């Protein structure tokens, strides 16, 4: 397929969800009404996300896999000359997987919601927000202009806020506000950094900036820019100690919100680090990389310890909260990989990104399902004294949960393994001019973190899936995995296995792109 066609495909991928969001608010045309207004609009959501998924698959198919380092399907239009902002779209090996992952996860979420709409507001606004969220996320991964990146980055905030505040549970409005204030504060500071780069370098074009490798920026400018941008992205990633919004947001968010938050939104932070900070300000990140790595490792350990604490009996740990904290740990690996500043580490980070999106998305789906069935996601209430005995009461659900947990702890052969291993591998032999001993310590600590991860995940599996015979027999059997749930979850599980068994498919895409991005190091 030639590039012009791809161009349109990419543009359509970004624009279609936005149009869909507007369309969702309009009254449905006659003939598409379905059984009611809710169903019509939910169907609309599935259709649009499905179309976007198809388009992204087409894009992936049309992508020139021989040259993943070059920007493909790029469109460059002058949008706001006053601010030197261009409508510049394009994808390379780094963004393509994330794009497809986003399209996939959103589609699955739409599908899941079609059968199981969370209680809260109207279906109309739910679908509109979901599509807006998708549009923003897809735009984040496909724009090549710093300001557009920021715009897209911001676009996801509002829909996510409303998803949490309207369809969430518990202390939802507070959590939602916390989420948006944290991320917005981060992103506004990021904006300052981006502007600094743009003003000093005279362009906001990410391709040009990446090619320049920061040669037009003085070292102090780079330092300030990295600090500002890094702060914004680190909030989103989230990096310890800026993660504190995440557990609350996840706990309060509806299932679909959690899936997208963990599976897609967190990736925007790490993607930004790789896409902007690494190539544009190599001098700055060189200075800050050890600190980033240190924070990442603290995050790994902290996340795991928090999960361990939550998993223990009597602590009243919430399963969603637990997975949220585990995300902090997993994203710690991603950050560690990025901080290693060598291709191995960065590739690992990108791989871990995708893997985390798949696995944690699956995990949140499962926990949401459990919460629906038990009416609670409180571990103590679920497991009681002897365990929830999910194996006995809903064997397929239990099996899937165990599978996801094991994938998450990084069992070789599943997706979780490669990313974290490569990240640690990268940190073991960090980029030039980085302190090796420090990084060795980080690697050791990260390795210890994987052990802790295994610890809490296995505890969870034990407490939720296993249980006394009495428990399983005394309590009525639960509804097992339903068809629509199966449809929504299978692709994730399958891809987890696929990525675990054939990592080269992904690494082959990212490797050349990463090498070209790291040209300045």
């Amino acid at each position, binding site marked *: 397929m030639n590039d012009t066609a791809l161009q349109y495909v990419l543009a359509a991928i970004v624009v279609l969800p936005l149009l869909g969001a507007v369309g969702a608010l309009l009254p449905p045309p006659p003939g598409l009404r379905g059984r009611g207004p809710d169903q019509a609009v939910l169907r609309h959501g599935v259709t649009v996300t499905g179309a976007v998924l198809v388009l992204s698959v087409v894009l992936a198919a049309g992508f020139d896999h021989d040259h993943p380092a070059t920007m493909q399907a790029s469109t460059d239009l002058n949008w*706001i000359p006053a601010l030197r902002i261009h409508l510049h779209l394009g994808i390379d090996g780094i963004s393509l997987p994330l794009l497809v992952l986003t399209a996939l996860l959103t589609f699955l979420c739409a599908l899941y919601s079609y059968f199981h709409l969370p209680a809260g507001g109207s279906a109309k*606004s739910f679908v509109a927000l979901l599509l807006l969220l998708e549009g923003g996320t897809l735009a984040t991964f496909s724009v090549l202009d710093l300001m557009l990146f920021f715009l897209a980055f911001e676009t996801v905030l*509002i829909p996510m806020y409303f998803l949490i505040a309207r369809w969430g549970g518990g202390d939802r409005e507070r959590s939602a506000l916390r989420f948006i*204030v944290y991320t*917005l504060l981060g992103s*506004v*500071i990021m904006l300052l950094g981006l502007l600094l780069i743009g003003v000093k370098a005279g362009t906001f074009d990410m391709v040009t900036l990446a090619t320049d490798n920061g040669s037009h920026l003085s070292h102090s400018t780079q330092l300030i820019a990295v600090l500002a941008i890094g702060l914004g992205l680190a909030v989103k990633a989230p990096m310890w100690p800026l993660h504190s919004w995440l557990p609350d947001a996840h706990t309060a968010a509806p299932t679909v919100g959690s899936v997208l938050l963990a599976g897609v939104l967190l990736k925007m932070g790490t993607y930004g680090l790789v896409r902007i900070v690494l190539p544009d300000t190599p001098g700055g990140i060189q200075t800050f990389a050890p600190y980033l790595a240190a924070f990442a490792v603290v995050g790994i350990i902290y996340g795991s310890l928090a999960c361990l604490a939550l998993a223990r009996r009597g602590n009243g740990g919430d399963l969603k909260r637990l997975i949220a904290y585990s995300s902090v740990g997993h994203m710690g690996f991603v950050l560690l990989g990025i901080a290693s500043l060598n291709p191995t580490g960065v590739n690992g980070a990108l791989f871990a990104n995708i893997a985390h999106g798949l696995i944690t998305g699956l995990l949140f789906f499962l926990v949401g399902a459990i919460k629906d069935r038990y009416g609670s996601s409180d571990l103590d209430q679920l497991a009681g004294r002897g365990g929830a005995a999910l194996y006995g009461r809903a064997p397929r659900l239990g099996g899937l949960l165990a599978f996801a947990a094991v994938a998450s702890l990084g069992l070789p052969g599943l997706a979780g393994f490669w990313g974290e291993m490569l990240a640690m591998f990268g940190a073991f032999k960090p980029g030039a001019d980085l302190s090796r001993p420090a990084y060795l310590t980080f690697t050791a600590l990260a390795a210890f973190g994987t052990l802790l991860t295994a610890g809490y995940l296995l505890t969870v599996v034990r407490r939720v899936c296993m249980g006394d015979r009495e428990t399983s027999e005394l309590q009525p059997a639960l509804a097992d995995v339903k068809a629509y749930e199966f449809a929504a979850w299978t692709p994730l599980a399958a891809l987890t296995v696929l990525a675990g068994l054939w990592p080269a498919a992904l690494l082959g895409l990212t490797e050349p792109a990463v090498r070209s991005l790291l040209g300045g190091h």
Partner: protein
Amino acid sequence: MASLVQPVDWTALTPVIVPAALAVAVLVADLFLPQGRKPLLGWVTAAGLAAAALTVIPLRDGHRTTFCQPETGGGCSYAADHFTLVVQVLVLGGAALTALLSINTREKIPAGEYWFLLLSSAAGAALLPASRDLATLIVALEVTTLPAFALVGLRRDDRLAGEAALKFFLTSVTATAVSLLGISFVYAATGTLQLTAVAEGLTHTPDQLHTLARAGVALTLVGFAFKLAVAPFQFWVPDTYAGAPLPVAAYLSVVGKAAGFSGLILVTVVAFRPYAHVWGPAIGVLAALTMTVGNVGALRQRPDVPRGAVRLLAWSSIGQAGYLLVPMAAAGSADDPAHEIGTTVAYALMYAVVNLGAFAVVALVERTAPHSRLTDYRGLYASRPAAALALAFFLLCLAGLPPGVIGLFAKVAVFSSAVGAQHGWLAVIMAVNVVIALVYYLRWTALLFTAAPEPAVAADADTGAGAGAAAVRTPAGLGLAVAVTAVAGVALSGAPQLILRYAQGALL
């Protein structure tokens, strides 16, 4: 002997003359119109203001000047350059929208006087950006504000209106006096009132007059700071807005602000340019203070306070004034100050459209919920989806969040001006403020979409159906105002270049 009468370029003056002449016409017409025909005056006013805004089209090359003094080597007192034209479009358009807002107001306001005062004030506001000497500037400023005092106090049966007017009045009058004292000092130091000549004169001030000149500059700016409600002189704004009729509050927050800012721009960037190293940082500090005070004040608003919506918008307008000051602070240290102030103008344009839109929706809601508390907005989406969506859009524009793209990029322009002028600290403070502002804007937005509280009395729903439907019907003026602002906002969000291009070129 050659004619001593200055040739006057009437074409250049049309944007000022049309509203002024219309003001007199409306006043006289009001005397002879029967009571039933009075609404006509409102439409005439709105149309006239819109037409006045359109009269800048023939001037768009921006080279016209008039009231010149060639024989004394002085410049011209009136210049219709691009800066002038843009601000004129802003104030006249804003006034036209205000007129639309007021046509269907339910408050007891004497019609003829209202339109007359609105038009007079608009004429002053249109003159202000064109003034190129301090005398014209002061006169224009007063023509803008004097009718505004009366507008604020025009609801004669309301005790709060008088109080609001008095606060506004005393502050403003004191500010004028202080400004004038400053101007008299500047005049003493430079021997002229022409802005460009003042700039020239300030560079050659004799040594013994340095202190005088500096005091003059400082006093003039303090006076303007008072007028613009720049912190720490902001105290009157929330009270005045809350006490004034709603359209008047809208007018003050948009047209009054824009006019004041154009005056401040002219004074600082043109007249006091040699002292840029003094006023630049000073304005920076004021900007930081203003936006913080305004946003924190807005944040502290409780949702159940009567007229809370207007109060919130009032505090937020103080915050927004802080943002407007940022590019001017940057202009203080820029090589070409005229370049930076374009950003202020662009931001003001965005703010005008969006804020008037917000006020229009507030006016709409006030018809059914006269207390105008923030809690009255709960569930607006259920009862008036279009109005709720519009208000949400306006608020997000004000907050600078997508889909309010224009609000976002206007802020980006302001940020980049601050970053470009090495005012990083200011940019950071502004960043924090943007986040604070987000909280209250978003709270309000969220309120629109939360489920409405169930009315306790369901029985009378059937009987009151007819009356209720009548009350909910959107009056034409308000509907038009909301529609115009919403369409403008969306169009600008799609093509921000339409106004951001002013941030690019030198307007002055």
